[in-house]
């Protein structure tokens, strides 16, 4: 097995079965529907137009491409439906390096070259994003081939294995035909996905957000800078935007919608599920710089008489985020806040201990209208993990978590 680079393959003379020089390699293409890495056809530029030469009809690649069929048998390449064209779609373009978690530019594409029984087998090994590919392409045809080869051997390769390459395609129809999805990207941490998205151009961001699963898209959306967040939502259609906003934490969703125009906010809200819509709408009514504007409405509140077993049952059926369970609240029949029990106390207490006995003293809470600065001070003073927010009748309305405070502080840096 040897390696071959795309830039070495492009421009090679193609000889047909009669041995006549018939044209030059113009493109190298994959058919992702069939195989994600095996080269399926070469597009040959001949005097009678561009023609498709299936890789099965190639008998050898050695300084030139030798075909086992005659020029007349190669069909004309009109359009390249369903083909990923390596030179056009990949060379010099930006791709996502899922392993390195960043956006990189492709200098060359490396193939594994196997001479099997039925002729050569070409598989994409990875994309070259380092100096080696760049130097090869810059100096090809400028310095003698042997000198270039010797020089290239001295340059350490910087290659991203093909399995870690995520291609960005902005045309939705082509995305489907080429089976471009972002499965591997989706497995990264939402914060890493957000960093990558911030490095892309607007159309590319939109393309990624349209393909990601709603849950992943929502998590990544929360991590984006507000400016980028707004731009992305504005570029999505209402339906898709609503699907993503629904999956977001209600407080983050409300912050995002508050930045959009009233019209757009209304259009997105209409498309949302009634339950989520109501939560977000309630939050939207609060001013952004108050405790109520920062809080989330996803928390666990139990009756005063509850025991630790009830609490554990409630946690098991809780659908919100893990970090929102770090404190369990106790409320009376009128929703008045009575106590707050940290998760650690519940875990350490014997089975079925009454919760009220575990409640923290003093009970710290913040008023809905409290300003940013006030609740940030409470967090600092009492080293809080969560801060309950109450209304004028002392009813529990929501919870502020440390990430809300950190976000608020960072935006003021």
């Amino acid at each position: 097995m040897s390696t071959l680079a795309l830039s070495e393959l492009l421009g090679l003379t193609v000889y047909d079965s009669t041995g006549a020089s018939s044209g030059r390699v113009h493109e190298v293409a994959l058919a992702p529907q069939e195989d994600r890495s095996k080269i399926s056809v070469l597009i040959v530029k001949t005097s009678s137009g561009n023609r498709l030469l299936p890789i099965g009809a190639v008998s050898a690649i050695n300084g030139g491409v030798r075909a086992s069929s005659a020029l007349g048998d190669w069909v004309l390449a009109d359009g390249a439906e369903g083909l990923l064209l390596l030179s056009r779609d990949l060379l010099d373009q930006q791709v996502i390096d899922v392993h390195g978690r960043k956006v990189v530019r492709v200098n060359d594409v490396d193939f594994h070259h196997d001479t099997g029984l039925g002729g050569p087998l070409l598989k994409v090994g990875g994309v070259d994003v380092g100096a080696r590919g760049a130097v090869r392409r810059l100096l090809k045809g400028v310095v003698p081939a042997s000198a270039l080869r010797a020089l290239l051997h001295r340059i350490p390769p910087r290659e991203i294995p093909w399995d870690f390459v995520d291609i960005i395609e902005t045309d939705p129809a082509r995305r489907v035909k080429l089976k471009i999805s972002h499965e591997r990207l989706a497995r990264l941490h939402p914060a890493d996905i957000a960093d990558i998205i911030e490095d892309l151009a607007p159309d590319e961001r939109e393309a990624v957000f349209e393909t990601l699963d709603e849950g992943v898209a929502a998590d990544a959306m929360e991590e984006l800078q507000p400016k980028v967040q707004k731009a992305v939502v504005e570029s999505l259609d209402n339906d898709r935007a609503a699907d993503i906003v629904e999956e977001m934490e209600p407080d983050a969703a409300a912050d995002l919608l508050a930045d959009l125009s009233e019209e757009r906010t209304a259009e997105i809200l209409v498309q949302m599920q009634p339950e989520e819509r109501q939560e977000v709408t309630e939050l939207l009514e609060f001013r952004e710089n108050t405790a109520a504007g920062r809080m989330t409405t996803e928390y666990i509140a139990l009756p005063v008489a509850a025991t630790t077993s009830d609490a554990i049952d409630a946690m098991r059926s809780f659908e919100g985020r893990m970090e929102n369970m770090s404190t369990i609240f106790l409320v009376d029949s009128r929703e008045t806040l009575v106590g707050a029990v940290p998760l650690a106390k519940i875990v350490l207490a014997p089975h079925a201990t009454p919760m009220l006995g575990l409640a923290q003293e003093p009970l710290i809470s913040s008023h809905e209208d409290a300003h940013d600065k006030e609740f940030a001070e409470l967090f600092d003073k009492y080293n809080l993990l969560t801060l309950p927010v109450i209304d004028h009748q002392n009813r529990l309305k929501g919870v502020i978590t440390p990430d809300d405070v950190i976000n608020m502080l960072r935006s003021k840096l």
Partner: protein
Amino acid sequence: MKFLRRWKIQILLILAVVGPGFITANVDNDANGILTYSQAGAQFGYLLLWTMIPTTIALIVVQEMCARMGAVTGKGLSDLIREEYGLRITFLMMLGILITNFGNVVGEFVGIAGSMGLFGVPKYIAVPICAVIVWLIAVKGQYKSVEKVFLAASFFYVTYVVAGLLAKPAWIVAIKATMKPPSFSTFHGPYLYMVIGVVGTTIAPWMQFYLQSSIVEKGVTRRQYKASRWDVIVGCIFTDVVAWFIIVACAATLYVHDIRDIRDAADAAQSLGPLAGQWASLLFALGLFNASLFAASILPLSTAYTVCEGLGFESGVERKFSEAPVFYWLYTILIAAGAAVVMIPGLPLIKIAVFSQVVNGAVLPFVLIFMLLLINKKELMGEYVNKPLFNIIAWATTVIMIGLTVVYVYGQVRGTN
């Protein structure tokens, strides 16, 4: 009420995008600009004023194209060249830009050396210290906070307007010279050289890369770019009004007193004499120092970004040195080498600064050709491709600049001036 609200939103919209265009225009009047315009006025009096109107129109068109490309594609100019024209062309382009911009960086340090010289600080002390300051401003991520200071200090340019008014120039002659180019016989060697320099300093190649990146960085989108357009237009007109007054002020002071060759900053400072009398050199020194330091903090950084983005190296001051070594080395070498050149004893510094602007003028058409090819691509720009009028103006600028350069070089080779 509704009207009031809409009006408020409009103002906010404009304020939100006022920035990239206006800042770029301000940096355009850098040390190289001030020195080139001064030399133009000193050497040829009012004879170069006619270039101002066509240059302003071309500048507006070219900058608007950059802003539009940035807003529509969300990508920098060097990214676009790379994606559409491949590695080899990009490499050559980046090499050309690197050399051209290096000349400009040298010019900024010429400005620093000259202005500090007027304060009595020798360049061997001032230049290295300022080089370190400039380096630190970017590496420590302090550029944004310093930018406001620079912008505010740019108010200095107004002094040129006042100085021009007080110098009692021959208004009628000046206005006539602005409207009508001189006779064909004027276009000989040194005059041609100056025309290329004046256009090259006004429409500098680096500005196009810088403006487009700033628009992308700011996140200006298709919807908002109408407001950016005003930002660009206002900025360009402001720049060129100042340029016009610099030429007039120098024509009315230096030229009439037969100081035809500016050899150091002290010569150029005399143009502010009618305004500030004995304080002229102090005022000039302050203004020149601010302009030089402002541009010196932008140019090397912008160049490093442009080159790294085009060639696919990691870039950005938010990354660590080990993560983006090429970026940091380029940036550091540009500053260090630029400062080093200025410290070589006995060099004709002002001539070097003017020469760097002539190189700008000669390189400009190549940048324009790529911009024109890119902005007329439907698959890239969609409905935002250039309108015919813009194409005509930008192509005309390209052709004229190539023509002027060819005629000048041909004249030099043949030795006929």
